[in-house]
């Protein structure tokens, strides 16, 4: 940007949520026809920043300027009207409708009497499809498209609204290498035609291939802005991480005991041939990229989704788990990835805490409200849950406190094995530390903990052993003391892209 203003300039963008400062004075510029990569760990603030750019969130402070003129995006429509489009990782399409309707939604051409001029609509769609390298009939229902085609369709949709800036959020997460090449070709063509891109990805090789500049976010701040040609992969990694883990995590001098849970050759939807053991007193981390099959595996072990093969042994005995109730009876708990899957929002805290332990609060099916209240108060105190009373509806608690209520549930139940799926997602730093201490305490009491997390520092800081999953399979196991972000990432990323078969 020499004389003229850049296409997009974000200045001093800040955004706080209750208890979390998600963004703190972030600057970002994108020039015309430039591809800028935005990288950072999960929770660094990338998605918050993009939601502000798309009018989903309003910044607390800071300015958005397009071509030098300040603008505000009160809603996604406003962003779109100013030529800013977002291509989501999981395309948001109306699957039952045709390609034309999906591409031109909102501005289908009108003919006489305001009726839709289908002939013109299909022609226009055909032109747009050609620009993104798609060759299907405009009348094809969107549900017949592959994931890759749906991504490209979203780009066509962005072009239809004459977008000058397109945000690509992990666009290659479910693409084959050939499809990635195709996508990059199209990005380059559009770039030559003056379209700018913000490219969000964990795949650093892709960034080296496609982006001109890279901006790095860490803990809500922008820590670097480099030319890709002058920056190596290692440097990007160290810019993203480079944080002292020291005092955030409890010491790892736990002692593992007998095997509590063993799975052999487990297969199901999204994962195959998984075998591992978890001992008493041990925290086993499961790392991997989003979509590697970790949640699917956990849900299947817990009986929430069906298993297709393999066996589960609990304390050395073969176990039959058909539903969550079976798993709970065998002393296995699962704390869901999406906290809302574990909460009864309109119900009081005390019921949310005691809902899995009717045996502790009821006799002959009749609830003793005094014991229910007493147990709830006890755990509210022990776990330092911030609530005005046990009668408070849980929806009024902060995310961290809600998570502690869910954990309290399983501690009261006295389960042996707890599977945590992204236990600290979206909760503030202080509550995170408390959750880590609780997990450590559980392990020290001889419980077995499986910790699924996309935050590598969390995996490194908490795990005695780390299992890594890649595309539904175990790609390796690393001792907790030897694990580094680099060796875990190496196992989590598709090792040799060309060896993967193409999707049908």
């Amino acid at each position, binding site marked *: 940007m020499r004389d003229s203003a850049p296409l997009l300039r974000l200045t001093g963008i800040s955004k706080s949520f209750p208890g979390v400062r998600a963004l703190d004075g972030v600057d970002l510029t994108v020039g015309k026809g430039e591809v800028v990569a935005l990288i950072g760990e999960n929770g660094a603030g990338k998605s918050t920043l993009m939601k502000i750019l798309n009018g989903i969130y309003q910044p607390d402070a800071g300015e958005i300027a397009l071509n030098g003129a300040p603008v505000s995006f009160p809603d996604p429509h406003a962003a779109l009207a100013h030529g800013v489009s977002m291509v989501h990782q999981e395309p948001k399409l109306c699957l039952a409708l045709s390609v034309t309707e999906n591409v031109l939604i909102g501005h289908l051409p009108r003919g006489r009497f305001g009726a839709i001029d289908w002939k013109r609509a299909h022609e226009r769609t055909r032109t747009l499809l050609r620009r993104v390298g798609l060759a299907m009939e405009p009348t094809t229902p969107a549900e017949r498209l592959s994931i890759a085609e749906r991504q490209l369709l979203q780009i066509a949709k962005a072009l239809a609204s004459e977008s000058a800036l397109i945000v690509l959020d992990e666009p290659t997460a479910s693409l084959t290498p050939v499809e990635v090449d195709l996508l990059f070709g199209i990005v380059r063509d559009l770039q030559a035609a003056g379209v700018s891109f913000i490219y969000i990805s964990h795949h650093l090789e892709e960034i080296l291939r496609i982006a001109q500049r890279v901006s790095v976010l860490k803990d809500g701040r922008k820590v670097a802005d480099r030319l890709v040609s002058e920056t190596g992969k290692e440097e990007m990694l160290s810019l993203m991480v480079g944080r002292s883990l020291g005092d955030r995590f409890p010491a790892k001098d736990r002692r593992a005991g007998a095997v509590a849970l063993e799975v052999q050759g487990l297969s199901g939807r999204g994962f195959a041939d998984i075998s591992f053991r978890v001992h008493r007193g041990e925290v086993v981390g499961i790392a991997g990229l989003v979509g590697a099959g970790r949640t699917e595996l956990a849900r299947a072990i817990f009986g929430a989704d069906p298993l297709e093969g393999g066996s589960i042994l609990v304390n050395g005995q073969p176990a039959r788990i058909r539903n969550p109730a079976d798993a709970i009876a065998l002393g296995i708990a699962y704390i869901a990835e999406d906290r809302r899957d574990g909460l009864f929002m*309109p119900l009081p805290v005390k019921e949310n805490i005691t809902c899995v332990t009717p045996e502790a609060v*009821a006799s002959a099916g009749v609830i003793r409200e005094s014991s229910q209240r007493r147990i709830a108060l006890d755990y509210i*105190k022990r776990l330092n849950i911030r609530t005005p009373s046990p009668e408070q509806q849980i929806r009024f608690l*902060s995310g961290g406190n809600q998570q502690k209520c869910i954990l309290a549930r399983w501690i009261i139940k006295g389960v042996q094995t707890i599977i945590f799926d992204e236990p600290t997602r979206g909760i503030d730093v202080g*509550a995170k530390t408390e959750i880590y201490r609780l997990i450590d305490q559980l392990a020290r*009491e001889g419980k077995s903990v499986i910790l699924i997390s996309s935050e590598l520092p969390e995996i490194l800081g908490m795990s005695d052993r780390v299992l890594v999953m890649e595309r539904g399979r175990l790609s390796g196991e690393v001792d907790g003391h030897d694990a580094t972000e680099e060796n875990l990432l190496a196992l989590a990323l598709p090792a040799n892209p060309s060896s993967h078969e193409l999707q049908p």
Partner: protein
Amino acid sequence: MTEPSQPMAAPATGPAAPQSAPAGRSVNWTGYLVQYSNVLALIVILLVASALSPYFFSSRNIFNVLRGATMVGIVAVGMTYVILNRGIDLSVGSLVGLSAALTASFADQGILVAAAIGLASGLFLGLVNGLMITVLRLQPFIATLGMMIFARGLVFVYTGGSNIAVEQPSDAFTLLGSGYVGPVPVPVVVFIAIWALAAWVLRYTVFGRSIYAVGANEEAARLSGIDADRNKVLVYCISGVLAAFAGVVMASRLTVGEPNGGTLFELDAIAAVLIGGTTFDGGVGSVHGTVLGILILAFLSNVLNLLNISPYSQMLLKGVIIVLAVVVSEWRKRK
């Protein structure tokens, strides 16, 4: 139950949870107004009524109104369970009619046998509703719409389209619908008993709390080891049995089984549940609210009758009230 060996102390961090109750010392009048709007509505109706007619507060009039409300009231108690469970039961009106027809036609076997047959029909068809919803994974609206039409068809086929009159009904047969305990009609006493039992089950039993849990978040209930399908089937069985019981009361009161008996009961019951503050989102509401809703609807039409307003015009007002009630319960949720 294993407990951690030592208290889990943790650093105090994070903001305090926001309060849901009206904060501060000043009384939040709008808050209370919204919270107790349906109680207020009932009081206003009663005041207006007593000003309009000296006859209104006679025990005769009051008990007549209450007795008239019991049949829909019993159905509405079952409907409360269903809606709390995040479902809907459109078949109840037809189940009332079927049970009434069966009870009337078996009257010569004695009230107990006749009532048992009526109740069994409701239990069985309620079970079928539950199984359609859990096993076939049909939406409750669709499953019970089908049942509504099917069961009404059964009534017409069974009665041949004409009334089944009870020949010389015994005192035992008419007791449930037309008897008195002192000045209080028997159906009113029975309704109060059903209300109390239903409210107790909802509040104090694991089953009752599971109805709320499944209604609030079915996936979370499943992940907590609650058998959500079993819970739903039971709820539709209860709704079916209560509808059938209303049919027994109807047969006993009218000593006749009418092919159209119970028609539109489902809508009155749903209206009472909504006016009572139970929401379609599941997990929020109570039987007490529903009873309030029943009383509001019953006394409102009593007042309008006293004012000589035609039943047709009354429908206009009822429609407005139902929509208003839902708007208010949305406000209540946001408080």
